[in-house]
């Protein structure tokens, strides 16, 4: 008879009670792809940053594993930590920019606008849609991007997304709605293409 696979709950119990590093390594192997993919979306395709944040996510998960109460799936809990890591990074980066480089911020705003122009030009050149979508996600606010990534990319329900984002379900719906409106504007050229 084949061995039944060890469940997440069993691995978590071994990691918490026996301080079993191998059990936690198995959890990392199981979820690394999902967490890294989620963070690649949140960072608008910055793979190096996404991997750094993924590493921070798992280190934080290890530190707080005892506080995981199984009230959500383990993957959802990891997405929550990953989103918080990304939000903290985004906030820190913004503070650094606001602190002493206001000019660069203005340049970056200009770059955002030129991004949009560049995006339309890419459409004309027939550049890949995936790249366009990644760039368009960069136009969204942090909260809108996080809500869209959780609801679409991570395939979470609104309730699960609310748990991940630590906000009411209504707020998640609002962020998704606003995000989609912005994406529609940014990707207007795609929407107008004949099917």
């Amino acid at each position: 008879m084949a061995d039944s696979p060890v469940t997440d709950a069993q691995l978590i119990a071994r990691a918490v009670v026996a301080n079993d590093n191998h059990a936690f390594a198995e959890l990392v192997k199981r979820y690394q792809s999902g967490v890294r993919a989620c963070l690649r979306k949140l960072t608008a395709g910055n793979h190096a940053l996404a991997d750094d944040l993924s590493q921070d996510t798992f280190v934080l998960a290890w530190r707080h594993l005892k506080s995981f109460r199984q009230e959500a799936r383990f993957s959802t809990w990891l997405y929550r930590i990953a989103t918080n890591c990304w939000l903290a990074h985004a906030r820190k980066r913004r503070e650094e920019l606001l602190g002493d480089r206001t000019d660069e911020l203005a340049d970056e705003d200009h770059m955002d606008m030129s991004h949009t122009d560049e995006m339309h030009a890419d459409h004309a050149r027939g550049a890949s849609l995936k790249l366009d979508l990644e760039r368009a996600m960069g136009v969204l606010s942090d909260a809108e991007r996080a809500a869209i990534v959780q609801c679409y990319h991570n395939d979470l329900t609104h309730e699960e997304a609310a748990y991940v984002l630590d906000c009411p379900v209504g707020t998640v719906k609002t962020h998704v709605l606003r995000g989609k409106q912005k994406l529609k504007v940014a990707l207007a050229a795609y929407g107008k293409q004949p099917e």
Partner: protein
Amino acid sequence: MSNDRRHDIPDTAPEGGDWLDRLLVDDAITSRDAYIADDGFTARVMAALPAPVMLPAWRTPIVVALWSVVAIGLAFAIPGAVLEVGRGAYRLLAAQPVSLSGIAGAAVAMIGLTCAAAAYTLRSN
């Protein structure tokens, strides 16, 4: 994860949101299907984990011994004060009216407290 869960996402856009929904769902499915190879990621995470705090086995007896030495040292350094505290405590106890029923009551109270503490500890475990 099933793609059927997409039914949870109502199209909240006023009009023409279908193509965007389709685009986002297609992109999500493509991304989910593309498994990201580990390529040493797990090893890097495991190397970055904080080392467990392991207390040496000799730590507890040494701490107990040090506190004992401090207590004995204090007792010898200020013998008068220790003697005075001891006498005061004795006088306080001796002044209490001691009866058989009082002793029984105290014993019952102590047993009750012990049982309650044991029950609480077992329940916590």
